[in-house]
């Protein structure tokens, strides 16, 4: 009992081959799209690599790039095969290649699906990477004289300006680290010495934030220092003041940004996966219908196309047997299994057609 059989006349077969040829070229274009989406994601992640701790984030764009390239190659080959399938003589060239090609493409579409799912799973990895990365970036904000960390100040400032955020979870994160370098602190002043002595680690902590936290929409000039001291500024109440600084934390801002990108890319990859699967189904139908034409001998006749010759269960069983027999190939045949060497006694067909090799797995 074949799975989903369809009858194909010669016309229908030719049209199917032509449509599949066009669709394969469209798939090459979608492969290029996949590749460029991978490159885009890679560039976006690399732009802010300073702010992310070491995690396996590069695997997602690398997967997309690899899948995109392989899709181009596979669909290019598929287009060539479908172009030749219109002519039964040329099909003979590809006859032996087609089945392995279909199996490979099937596993390849599985990897496209895996790529799409990986895009959706980026969220969890990113969260951890960003928490640690941002915390370290803020800690090294003041180290503009240390090689390897001298660009962190600029990166963090530009991040806070561009994403309209302040600190890791909020602006209070800046109160807990020393973000003013000792080079610019006058140690002879009493106020500075007091602050340094006021905590265990000897850090210069204050209730102030860098200028990049300032909100552009505020009606008054930005208040960056003595934020929690209402009397230091005229007509100011820090509990009700909302427009002075950016309220959002950069962790949330970056997470939202990358999650949005990941979801959009994931959706696109899913659509491409469905498209690839449909093209593969078409190629399978074309292959089986052409093989049946060859079996019947007349190139003009009507033939059946199907997904699987027998039902799922029987195909699985026969494949399982094949694998078992491959293992038993080296052993002596007198083991008693009656099916190994016996040639088929069933119909041969015309005299000049050789008997089919056992077993047929198509």
């Amino acid at each position, binding site marked *: 009992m074949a799975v989903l059989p369809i009858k194909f006349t010669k016309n229908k077969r030719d049209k199917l081959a032509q449509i599949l040829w066009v669709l394969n070229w469209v798939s090459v274009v979608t492969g290029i799209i996949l590749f460029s989406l991978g490159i885009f994601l890679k560039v976006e992640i690399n732009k802010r690599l300073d702010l992310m701790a070491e995690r396996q984030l590069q695997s997602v764009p690398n997967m997309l790039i690899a899948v995109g390239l392989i899709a181009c190659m596979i669909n290019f080959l598929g287009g060539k095969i479908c172009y030749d399938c219109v002519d039964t003589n040329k099909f003979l060239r590809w006859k032996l290649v087609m089945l392995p090609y279909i199996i490979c493409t099937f596993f390849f579409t599985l990897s496209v699906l895996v790529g799409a799912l990986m895009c959706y799973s980026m969220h969890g990895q990113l969260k951890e990477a960003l928490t640690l990365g941002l915390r370290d970036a803020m800690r090294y904000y003041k180290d503009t004289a240390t090689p390897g960390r001298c660009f962190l*100040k*600029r990166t963090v400032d530009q991040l806070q300006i561009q994403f309209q955020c302040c600190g890791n979870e909020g602006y209070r994160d800046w109160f807990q680290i020393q973000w003013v370098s000792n080079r610019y*602190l006058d140690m002879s002043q009493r106020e500075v010495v007091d602050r340094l002595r006021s905590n265990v680690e000897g850090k210069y902590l204050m209730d102030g934030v860098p200028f990049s936290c300032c909100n*552009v929409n505020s*009606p*008054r000039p930005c208040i960056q220092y003595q934020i929690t001291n209402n009397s230091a500024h005229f*007509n100011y109440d820090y509990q009700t003041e909302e427009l002075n600084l950016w309220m959002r934390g950069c962790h949330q801002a970056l997470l939202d940004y990358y999650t949005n990108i990941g979801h959009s890319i994931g959706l696109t990859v899913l659509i491409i996966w469905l498209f690839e699967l449909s093209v593969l189904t078409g190629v399978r139908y074309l292959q089986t219908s052409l093989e049946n034409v060859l079996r019947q001998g007349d190139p003009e006749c009507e033939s059946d196309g199907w997904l699987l010759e027998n039902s799922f269960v029987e195909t699985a069983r026969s494949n399982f047997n094949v694998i078992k027999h491959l293992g038993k190939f080296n052993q002596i045949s007198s083991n008693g299994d009656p099916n190994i060497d016996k040639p088929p006694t069933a119909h041969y067909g015309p005299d000049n057609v050789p008997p089919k090799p056992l077993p047929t797995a198509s």
Partner: protein
Amino acid sequence: MTGDYDTQDIILYFIFFRPNQNGCQTVGGTLKAQGLKERALKYSRSMVLLKIKFPFQKRVRLAQGLWLLSWVAMFSGAITFAMGVFLKTELHRRSEVMHSMDIHIVPNLLMAVGLASVGINICAGKVCQDSLDPTRFPRWKMFLPPFFCFSVFLTSLLLVAMILSFALQPSLEESLKIGLKNGIHFYKDTDTPGRCFQKETIDRLQIEFQCCGNTNYRDWFEVQWISSRYLDFTSKEVKDRVRSNVDGRYLLDGVPFSCCNPASPRPCIQYSLLDNSAHYNYEYQSEELNLYNRGCRQALVSYYMGLMNTIGPCVLFDFLLQMTILVSLRYLQTAMEGVIGQENVEIETEGYILEKGVKETLLETKEKMKKLLQFARVDDASAVTPDTEPEADKPATA
């Protein structure tokens, strides 16, 4: 006899009028030759402009090549339109800091000509298609001369746009100077309707273009940019500052936070900029990275000039392409006119740009215009004469 004519006459005579042997020998032939010579001379004076011979194959190839080229020019025209739209949106985005809209004529011209050239090239393509079929070509006869004038005028507008983009640079700079000055003046007025967005506009501008003030950061020292709402008038410092100048403004040597440069190694110093002792290890004369050094006027002018310099070569290419198409179309039209009415379509014809020289064509056009005007006046005159005629009759009858 031949001594009276110079070589040129003889050549012209034989080129244009190919007389037979007998006509040259007889007396009547001499007179005929004289008349022909005059006609030949007259014809030589009104030489056609840039004549090219077109055999049938060359005509066909010209038509086909021109049809293809008209498609390319159509895309080029669409690109010119798109560039005009882009330039206009960019100018519009910063319209709050621009005082006058003079510079907008450049993108407007580009958009208009881009759209028009799409239409012109569609017509050109149709004419080319029809020129391969001599029965369909005559219907374009009345349409083509005004079409050429119109197209040449529109295409030259592209050159005008390019020239204007350079010529209007001082006007742009002046407009930005006034606009930025107003923006900085009204920076503090976040509670005045109509001006409440100036602060946000100027802050965003300074951050995005990495600039500070109009010419440089010192422009902020001359303006009160902190609103009086946030000044404590009971404090001594505020009172001193307000009293220190004639207008009673709170001036200070400080700048808004948007002037701060993220590339600076130290946290931003915005206030007491000219006071070295107010900050540790600070000298304002040698400090370069603390604030943005560039003025916003300079930054914006460079930006817009950069945009127009990028668009310039594309517009020039479009202009050259369009002129090539118009010249080739004119040749095709004049070559086809020689074919109309002929039995054999495959004869060789001549194509030219102008039938007579430039001066004569202009004179002819002037005559035509005069005739049209006279025609209008004659109508008026004939409306008047029926009244005078009965009067003329009356005295006769009286």
